[in-house]
């Protein structure tokens, strides 16, 4: 038993391949048997992954989900930013450049609206819960954008660590919701073509959320959504501590 454990830990990435393979196999079986394929197998697999992530985090108190359990540390390599981005880039192979050009203006508008609307909504919710200083409002607004924009904004503006932690949590909630919810809302919002996928990526912005949500909806949409989402966090980090903070500050100075 100890020998087996030792081998699995030392070959963490290989064990992660096996583990994810098993999750997908079981998820596709479940999709066929329980929903006759109506709920996409990959959607089930992502939910299973998130449940494991929660269990791992709850058991270890760490911040990297199941990979904080030594046996599953290889998942951090397989699902980390490096291989995730590598795989996202590879999905662009075979993409029609004309589709991207056609959705250009919508995509850019989606990015701007996505960042601004998230900040506004986040700040309004924070206001409703009794936060009144512009720094906290902007930071929580940043969290409503992504869990990176929140802390970057908060650190730049000197927000309290409690508010920064809150903004990270808000961003994580958004990201998880996008991963789980996208396949269900996709038919309602017309998310079934490259253009709407680019708009979706620009509006939602969370790379992991968009990557997971579109994977569970229709893998062919992934490159289009990822294309715009990749600009979102940078744009949020750019606008948050500068323009958006100034606007919020001015509004509260009156």
């Amino acid at each position, binding site marked *: 038993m100890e020998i087996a454990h030792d081998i699995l830990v030392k070959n963490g990435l290989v064990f992660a391949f096996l583990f994810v393979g098993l999750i997908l196999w079981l998820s596709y079986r479940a999709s066929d048997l329980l929903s006759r394929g109506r709920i996409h197998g*990959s959607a089930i697999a992502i939910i299973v992954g998130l449940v494991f992530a929660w269990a791992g985090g709850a058991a270890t108190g760490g911040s990297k989900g199941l990979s904080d359990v030594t046996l599953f540390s290889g998942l951090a390599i397989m699902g980390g930013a490096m291989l995730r981005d590598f795989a996202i880039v590879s999905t662009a192979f075979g993409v029609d450049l004309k589709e991207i050009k056609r959705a250009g203006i919508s995509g850019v508008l989606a990015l701007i609206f996505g960042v601004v609307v998230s900040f506004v909504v986040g700040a309004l919710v924070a206001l409703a819960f009794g936060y009144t200083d512009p720094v906290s409002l902007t930071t929580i607004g940043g969290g409503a954008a992504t869990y990176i924009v929140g802390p970057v904004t908060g650190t730049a503006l000197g927000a309290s660590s409690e508010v920064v932690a809150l903004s990270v949590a*808000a961003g994580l909630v958004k990201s998880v919701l996008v991963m789980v919810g996208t396949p269900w809302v996709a038919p309602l919002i017309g998310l079934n073509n490259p253009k709407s996928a680019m*708009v979706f990526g620009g509006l939602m912005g969370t790379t992991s959320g968009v990557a997971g949500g579109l994977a569970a909806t229709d893998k062919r949409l992934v490159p289009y959504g990822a294309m715009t989402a990749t600009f979102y966090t940078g744009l949020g980090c750019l606008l948050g501590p500068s323009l958006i903070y100034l606007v919020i500050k001015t509004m509260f100075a009156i």
Partner: protein
Amino acid sequence: MIIYGVAILAFCHLAGLIVGRLLGAAMGIDANIGGVGFAMLLLIFITGWLRAHGQLPEQSKNGILFWSAMYIPIVIAMASIQNVAAAVSGGVVAVVTGIAANIACLLLVPVLSRIGGVEPPLPATEGEKV
């Protein structure tokens, strides 16, 4: 050779991330702006050029397609390392913020998608497997 495809992909990935980082630095922020997006565009251009010149044999293509096929498994692994525990224990403010931002942005998807005309949906696929 398969490695040629993987190497092209790796080149695009790295070059795109460097461009994104430089763009961030030029705007004075410590973040990558669009690195993955630039990498994707680069891959589209380079493979398009190679294909037009008959320089992209099946084997090289497979080096890229393998990673494309690994996309969903990698996303599952990504899901399993998210800080879900922190999201769940973030309290009411975090949950309400996350939900509200989600709904507001989702509602805008059909609105902005309509700019310049509605596109037809992608053709249905027959029980596509990973």
